[in-house]
């Protein structure tokens, strides 16, 4: 099989802008899409989720020509839904990080487990050869590792992959969505449960204004710790002393 005839699937999730919360294509999935586009071959973009989400169209702007959509209700099992459309691909690419909600970033692992495929994580580059496929993994401290992979395989793309997704509005208009029938699935019970937050008292702490040298002294010399111990006096005097301290350190403004 030649390198260009490989069937490649890219798993596309919806992400959220961390500031505004606006729905957008998941940044890592865009990197996966861009890597796949540069590999050439027969590319399919697959999303499982709400079919009415307008932000899905942005995947077209970022270069996908079509999108296979598996409708899925909120809270449905994304990995299982995706697997229903993932038979027969040589490479399955996905991002590494989820961007919001209860997203866990585990979808590529779950997909690989269900399909019984190997998974390579933290990938920044892929070279498709006629014989073997080589991927480059990002390791800690800027180290790189080249790994030879037997296809089919699942690849999770590292956030610093060496590609730049480009947004072109004209492509957004040209993209086509194919919606498949929603798979019959039992709704998964969420492992999360909600409880009301308890209000806790806030501890006042004076802002540290001492020099580094003074702080060091107060840590090692008992006499240099500062403050005052008020043993004598009426309770009102002691309360006044405390108030004066709080005012001095601007912990209360009355």
């Amino acid at each position: 099989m030649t390198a260009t005839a490989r069937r490649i699937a890219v798993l596309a999730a919806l992400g959220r802008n961390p500031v505004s919360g606006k729905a957008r294509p998941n940044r890592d999935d865009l990197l996966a899409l861009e890597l796949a586009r540069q590999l050439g071959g027969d590319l399919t973009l697959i999303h499982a989720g709400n079919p009415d989400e307008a932000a899905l169209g942005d995947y077209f702007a970022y270069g996908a020509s079509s999108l296979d959509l598996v409708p899925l209700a909120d809270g449905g099992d994304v990995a299982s839904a995706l697997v229903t459309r993932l038979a027969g691909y040589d490479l399955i690419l996905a991002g590494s990080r989820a961007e919001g909600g209860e997203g866990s970033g585990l979808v590529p692992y779950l997909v690989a487990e269900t399909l019984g495929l190997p998974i390579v994580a933290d990938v920044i580059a892929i070279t498709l050869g006629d014989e073997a496929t080589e991927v480059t993994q990002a390791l800690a401290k800027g180290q790189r590792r080249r790994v030879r992979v037997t296809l089919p395989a699942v690849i999770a793309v590292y956030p610093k992959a060496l590609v730049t997704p480009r947004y072109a509005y004209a492509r957004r208009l040209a993209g086509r969505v194919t919606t498949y029938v929603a798979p019959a699935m039992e709704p998964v019970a969420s492992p999360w449960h909600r409880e009301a937050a308890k209000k806790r008292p806030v501890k006042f702490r004076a802002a540290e204004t001492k020099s580094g040298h003074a702080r060091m002294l107060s840590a090692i010399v008992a006499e240099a710790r500062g403050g005052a111990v008020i043993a004598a006096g009426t309770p009102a005097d002691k309360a006044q002393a405390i108030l004066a301290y709080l005012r001095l350190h601007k912990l209360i403004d009355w």
Partner: protein
Amino acid sequence: MQWVQIAITIVFWVAVATLAVGLIRRIRLWRNGRDAPVDWGGLLAIPRRYLVDIHHVVARDSYIANTHMAVAGGALAALALVAINYGLALYQPWLDWLTLAAAAVMLVGSYFIWARRRNPPARLSKGPWSRLPFTLAGFAAGVIGLMLVTLVPPSATTTMLALPLLLLLIAGSAELALGIGAGGPMKHAVAGLLHLGFHPRKQRFTGRSVDLRPLDLDAGDFGVGKPADFRWNQLLSFDACVQCGKCEAACPAFAAGQPLNPKKLIQDLVVGLASGSDAKFAGSPYPGIPIGEHAGAPDKAVVPFLIEPATLWSCTTCRACVEECPMLIEHVDAIIDLRRNLTLTTGELPGTASETLANLRETGTTGGHDVAARQHWAVDLDVKQAQPGTLVDVLLVVGEGAFDTRYQRTLRALVKSLKAAKIDFAVLGDSEFDTGDTARRLGDEATFQMLAQRNIANFARFQFRRIVTPDPHVLNSLKNDYPALGGHFAVLHHSTLLAQLAKSGQLQLGPTPDRRAVTYHDPCYLGRYNGEIDAPRDLLKAIGIEVREMERSGLRGRCCGGGGGAPLTDIPGRQRIPDIRIGDAKATGAAIVAVGCPQCTAMLEGVVGERPEVLDIAELVAQSLPVPA
């Protein structure tokens, strides 16, 4: 000399026929462009546009203005007289005398062209343009000689002289007649006049016209990818270029050594429209890009075959080139059209421009900030937030500068002055989105239209009489770009409002306590785009500051380098544009540069080393408010 007269008649009609054939050929090339409404009435307006609007620009350089008046005036008069006298075969001696006089004026003008070109400024194109004084002088001398030959009694000497004079006339006429068809220098005469008639922005002749044409995105209009995507009258306008290089001399990107030269850009588009390579271009190249490696055709992509993307991304859209152009060519429109195609169809933008556009789409701010945090600068100032249903006089649109701690000082100063003048004003709470100006200048029309529609819908929720903004980019966007999308607002720059208030006495200003010398830097989007050059100066005068004008100021002010998304695309050059501008400021000896724009503030404050202090007009005004008793 019967035969000489007949020969002149023949030369005349052959030249007219040559011109006509050439013109038809050129019209065919222009017609490759997209349709645009043909305003035939514009043809009638040519004389006024030529004598008033163009003259206004040309007269800045009185030497060449007078020279051109002599050459073109003399040539036109001589041609008209020859057309009557010889074209119609009248052969009246008194008309010959007039023709002779006209040609003599032309000859004198040609001498001055020659004199200028002996030691030409770098901005002028050489090549075929260098032969022009000689061919024009040849034409004038030929006419003068032949008129004399026909006027004096025939003799052996006149017969002997007639033939070389005829050859001189033919050579001169060839320059005039072949220009339009063969693309020679004299093309400008025909194309220039037609360009005046069919100008793509005819509103320029009645007022200011800086609004950009909205793209019909749903109809698949994604700007200009190949020369034939320009509208036909834009193609015609490129042919009007005389390669005087005034644009080149005014261009901040060219001065900074970035790969842009507006003159070369227009000439490249001429190459694209007529098919060919840029090898014959005889002016300054784009800095860092050699001549002769690019070629184009009407249906061939402009980028990268004809023009490198870096050239387009160098432009700050300051319109200095447009302001200087004696042929009223719209360079910036062409650049925006080309950028639009790059951005909308490929998304390949350099630097952090892509990131900024994504921020605009996702957060409604260029910096990716939280819109709800935009008014945090005013948290302790007791500034009213606009409420639906409650009328306010002034809606203060603060712009992206509100997220910048430096610029917040300007905003706070402005609030101080507004309060001192007892203006009823309010800011938009958590619903002020970016106007989309940066997106539009970067060619992202889709994001601009999305933001514009969102803003127009948002403004409709509130009741206000006018919008005031300290950001000229916001001003320009709301005032000039929004009307085409259905947003009509009364918009003022803060300097305009403060100047009005100071004049009416509603804002009492004392003399400034700061006695340092001040110069004023005109923001392009306030001055050139919106014509507001007086209010800031009036305001400074009102607080007792005499502005020391920089070398380039007012409508001809030099850009700070911050417009058009240029700081985002960040094309490398030899020098930075704000450094050049601070150089101008230093040359005046001023210790303060007064500004009126968050972009200019940021760009000029970014200049390292010793430099004048950069203060917004609002800050200078607030300093001068009398201390309340």
